[in-house]
């Protein structure tokens, strides 16, 4: 039965798994969009270069074969040609470096943020601290995934809600707000990554790294730790819930009153 389900999985993926995703998500932040646009630009450039180079090679393979009686030419150097195919790639590279540099300058500019979220990596969970509002909590893999992921748990993981991508406490962030994220770690190096919010950054003990997001669409975005951090590295999900600003402040005040209640 198990083998049958494996075969079935291989030949007929269900649409619900969104299975055949082949590309980087465009994402919902300015940084994820520039990463995507740059990715596609370079992808297309390499496709064109590939078609030209492999095309020439294929033509040669088809027509310049001994079995067709093709006699070998004797040329084996040409300074002119060599200069051309040194200079042209160099120009293409400069053409790629310009947008990449612009994008990078934008991505590294964390000034003028409205709120600051501090993320601390632990083996194996995340701590989130909203510095302006002194709200703080830990976030780790949800119980259902945590049970299902054990060796021979007997659970059909395809039936688990967002298997390995669900947490007990969700990070809530406001939309259309520049949020500065500070990253550090308490034990080993982790990396905080939600693909739809743009790139990742390492959370390193003794360092405070910076990145920023400005989420344009409300929604739930999922990711996970991206730097090997020990045996449960694969089980450190991240879930970000983006809500409009007013809802966000409502959520913050609830968190604060909860905290007060606990302290009492």
């Amino acid at each position, binding site marked *: 039965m198990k083998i049958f389900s494996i075969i079935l999985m*291989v030949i007929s*993926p269900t649409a619900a*798994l*969104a299975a*055949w*995703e*082949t*590309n*980087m*998500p465009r994402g919902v932040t300015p*940084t994820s969009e*520039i*990463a*995507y646009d*740059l990715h596609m630009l*370079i992808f297309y450039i*390499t496709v064109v*270069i590939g078609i030209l180079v492999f095309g020439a*090679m294929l033509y*040669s*393979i088809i027509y*310049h*074969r*001994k*079995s067709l009686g093709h006699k*070998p030419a*004797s*040329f*084996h150097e040409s300074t002119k*040609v060599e200069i051309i195919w040194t200079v042209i*790639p160099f120009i293409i*590279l400069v053409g*790629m470096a310009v947008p*990449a540099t612009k994008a*990078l*300058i934008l991505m*590294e500019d964390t000034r003028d943020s409205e709120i600051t979220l501090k993320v601390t990596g632990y083996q194996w969970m995340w701590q989130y601290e909203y510095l302006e509002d002194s709200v703080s909590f830990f976030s780790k893999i949800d119980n259902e995934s945590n049970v299902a*992921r054990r*060796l*021979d748990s007997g659970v059909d993981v*395809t039936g688990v809600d967002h298997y*390995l991508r669900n947490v007990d406490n969700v990070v809530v962030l406001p939309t259309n707000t520049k949020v500065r994220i500070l990253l550090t770690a308490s034990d080993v*190096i982790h990396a905080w990554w939600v*693909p739809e919010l743009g*790139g*990742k*950054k*390492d959370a*390193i003990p*003794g360092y405070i790294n910076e990145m920023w997001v400005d989420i344009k669409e409300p929604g739930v975005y*999922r*990711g*996970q730790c*991206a*730097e*090997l951090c020990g*045996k*449960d*590295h*694969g089980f450190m999900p991240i879930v970000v819930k983006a809500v409009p600003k007013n809802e966000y402040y409502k959520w913050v005040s609830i968190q604060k009153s909860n905290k007060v209640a606990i302290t009492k």
Partner: protein
Amino acid sequence: MSANIDKLHDDHSHTPTGIMRWITTTNHKDIGTMYLWFSLIMFFIGGLMALVIRAELFQPGLQLVVPGFFNQMTTMHALVMIFGAVMPAFVGLANWQIPIMIGAPDMALPRLNNWSFWILPFAFTMMLSTLFFESGGPAAGWTLYPPLSLQGGDSMPFVILSIHLLGLSSILGAINVIATILNMRAPGMTLMKMPIFVWTWLITAFLLIASMPVLAGAITMLLTDRFFGTSFFTASGGGDPVLFQHIFWFFGHPEVYILILPAFGIVSTIIPAFSRKKLFGYDSMVYATASIALLSFIVWAHHMFTVGMPLAGELFFMFTTMLIAVPTGVKVFNWVATMWRGSMTFETPMLFAIAFIVLFTVGGFSGLMLAMVPADFQYHDTYFVVAHFHYVLVPGAVFAIIAAVYYWLPKWTGKMYNESLGKLHFWLTTFFVNLTFFPMHFVGLAGMPRRIPDYAVQFADFNAIASVGAFGFGLSQLLFVYILYNALKQRVTAEDKCWEGAEGLEWTLSSPPPYHSFEKAPKID
């Protein structure tokens, strides 16, 4: 084979027989052969580890191994394949080929040669034995990043000592290669008349000597952090975890080219032979190889763009990394120009060499994409990176090694392999290598991190395909072993110059060549 050994005995009654022949040998061919067999064995051991990884990743959920053991497998797979399979294979090829390509009787330092080989089995026995320790083998990835690697169990000092030994072996081998090439070329063979394979190995040897001691320093600092109370890499003691990454990759990037430059040399030898046309742009090939080697020392931080470097640092490493595309492009264009208007035939070595050019270039393209820092923030530490470096190392380095074995096997043994089986091996290998590694681009872009034992269900389908491909690839290599066995057991002797378009001094020797390759130096005009 027996006839050959008898003949050797006539000439060399002092040569020990049986196992002692192999333990005490100082002959470059014997040592080359041992390196190549050692590499093949390690290729299968590392391959089995890869199959454990792919079997676990065949479907979501944990079915076979616990996460800790999975991490040991990814770590060991890399260490075994890099230091045990690819590097010894290239040293084996250097041992066999350099003396017979430059017209020398043997390597310059034969006893050192024996030692540098015999370090390997002991170093790997020690490294692999850690898998049977109660606390298991190393599990922090082959990059050994602290603080994680400092948390490791009892395996750590053993792994560090074995890496030291492997580094020692590599440095000794590199010294031997340089001494041989610079001192023992036939009269008239100027540097710019050397076979291109010899050139690529000369440059590789300098990279080895420059980079291996850096690795030794980094892992020694790890060792003292763990056992002698230093804090080079621990933040709580005032150390810097990122410093390790800088030192490691200052070794690591030249290491990447150590794994590929000899492959460039092999392909630059095979493509002209089967195109029946001289290598296009020999001089520019040499200069391109040297430029790649020099650039390899100033690009290291592109392996660690996400550690939070200053903007200026990120820009510098992005630009230098992109620059590598220029000399690498020159090489690819020159190979295509060599094929252009040639008179090609497609024997197995040529097929592997052509596949090398295409698939290595695919890996080069993804490398160029990875150089773009803003996009790299998405690609970094995902399966996209795994796809990238496997494209340059498997259909790159490994294909070149296989091509070299097919190309020179008749020379080494005097026996021709079965061409139809060789072609079958090529097509199976090429099909499965793409089935394994191409889907990894997709899951990586879609958000699957590397080094995870289990994954979210949206990555299930491409992972299943990759696993099927990996098993197909592994099984296809058993055919390679059969082809070697089949060739070695036959009696038919290959011609001295078994390839019509082959050029070089090695083809002037008998197949197999005499025990002391060139007793009298040939004259080169």
